[in-house]
């Protein structure tokens, strides 16, 4: 929940289901000091574009370990990565098969249909 806005942050997010043909889409997000990249991604889904595919479960606790993505070129848990005012680039994990947008196939093989 974003309570007090202290400016905006711009997120450049890699979209699509193809590793090669993906494109970047930009979103403006109200910025609050201390917020995480995952906070921003969830806010985008609720307020701007619910079709953005992301994977997460515990939201804030860094307990489920499922929210990893490439943030400004570095692989991070998006719940731990602090958002900064200005531009943040978010891309899916590079070495995992891409499902769509920021979701890659991180499900262990023995847990698949």
């Amino acid at each position, binding site marked *: *929940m974003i*309570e007090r806005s202290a400016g905006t942050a711009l997120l450049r997010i890699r979209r699509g*289901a193809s590793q090669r043909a993906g494109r970047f889409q930009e979103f403006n997000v109200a910025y*609050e*000091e*201390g*917020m*995480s990249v995952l*906070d921003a991604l969830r806010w985008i*889904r*609720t*307020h701007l574009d*619910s*079709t*953005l*595919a*992301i994977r*997460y*479960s*515990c*939201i*804030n*606790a*860094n*307990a*489920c*370990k*499922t929210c990893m993505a490439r943030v400004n070129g570095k692989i991070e*848990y998006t*719940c*731990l990565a*602090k958002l900064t005012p200005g531009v943040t680039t978010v891309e899916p994990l590079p070495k995992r098969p891409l*499902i*769509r*947008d920021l*979701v890659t*196939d*991180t*499900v*262990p093989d*023995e*847990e*698949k*249909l």
Partner: protein
Amino acid sequence: MHQLSTDVLIVGAGGAGMYAAITAARAGTSVILLDKSLVGRGGATVMAQMTVAAALGQQEADAWTTHLEDTINAGRGLCNEELSVLLCREAPARILEMEAWGTRWARENGHIKQEFAPGHSRKRCCYVDFLNTGPAVAATLRRKVGEMQNVRRLSNIAVIEILVQDRRALGAVGLHVADGELVMFHAKAVILAAGGLTKLFARNSASANMGGEAYALALWAGAELVDMEFVQFFPIGHLAPRLVGMDPILWDPFRYKLGGKLLNGRFEEFVDRYGGADFGKYTAMRDVAAYAILKEVEAGRGTPHGGAYLDFRHISEQQLRAAFGPVIDRLLANGIDLTKAPVEVGPMAHYHMGGVRVNADMATRVSGLYAAGEAVGGANGANRLSGNAISEAFVFGARAGAAAAEYARRATLQREMLPVRAAFEGLEALSHGGAKDAPTPAALQAELQTLMWEQAGPFRTEEKLAAALQRIKRMQLDDLPNLRLSQGNSFNLDVQDWFELRAMLATAETVVTAALARRESRGAHQREDFPDADEALLKNQLLELKSGRLVSRWLAPARRHAKGAGHD
């Protein structure tokens, strides 16, 4: 549509679901264990940072009957004592079993270390350092489940309907999120272990998995729900400064170990004004503390983010580091220096005392349908003691798995296609995709969360609850069938959100309906228009669907010596 068959199908792979999978598999039945997220990583268990209550008697003399007295006392007269007995009597064995399976409970002087927690009369609560209880027990159970050859684990499957014929559960329909396909599971027995409902409230400590689906699935299947008005609002959830990478409930173990002062916006101690004694220790029970904080906020004595201050400035950095080691650095990385400034805390939805009505075998009144963990209602009455939730997950999970396996050994599998009502309603809504300006399921979920927090949260009135109920019904009738849904099958969260919202609305309706009918204040249910407890309402409230309508009735609580307690 994929089709799979098993003896026992388990919906939800947190602590209760994984424990159930282990006991069912040990009994020789085949098991399919499902999770909406990843097995053993979603849900509430993995987020638990703090303690597990069990009368081990290792720190000091204790007995399960003493734990029971404390649990019943905290439950404000409404515990289903038959379930409370199971919880308290069997918790020690489960804790030791977990240790044998590899959980490294904090130890000192050759015994498991146990701490006080509010409402417990003995040092009873064990934990894994540092703030690592949930991840540690989840890892133990994941590993154990992985060793069972007859357990099939499936991740990213959201169950949307339990298949029922002639009051008998025959399986479930799930949505496979990765490819948007429906999956039909044929099973002899089904265990609902999908956790609680705290995601219904805007201020919560929930993960993405606690939308109350277990309750909606049980209700639609023909089971009864009990005590749905009793939502536990954790008093000192973290509000500010913004803290990432840690559960908002983290301050509980800080208070167990170090005390800490709870102060209002004017830096005065205040909990004692509301009948609780706190005084820099941590003794006020959860319902009292939550009430006191919000009353101070209402009187204009709150903090900037609408809560209270929690102050550790009287405690040295050395003591802080001795107690919480690396956690202190994680706080500093968030700009939080406990030696310099207090933090802001306030109530948030944390746990649900109510839930699916079961007997001592965790069986509902629908043959072959079981529940386990937080999905079960009754063991904690109107207010839960800290530490009882993980114990409950283990104990009820173990029992449900064993009972469902026993039932499955006698049952036969029904493989014919069954009517899948919910699934097709959903597919119909999906097919037209809604108007361009219609809200999305995610947006309506956010509206529901705000509505529930403001109108059906810690302080309730007839007027607020009636308004909430009216809006929920309109959301069900007008909004839900006409939401904007994107097309496409690959990881389409709009579709998952739609089914989740459908269950959230059904569960929200049960909470508000039950809260309207309980015209008194007791434990976690606080009615401003009926501020006192009413002896005539020393009863559990049962809800069921009759011809599609929610109907409530009252029943005297099961007492521990009562014959035939549980089902009437």
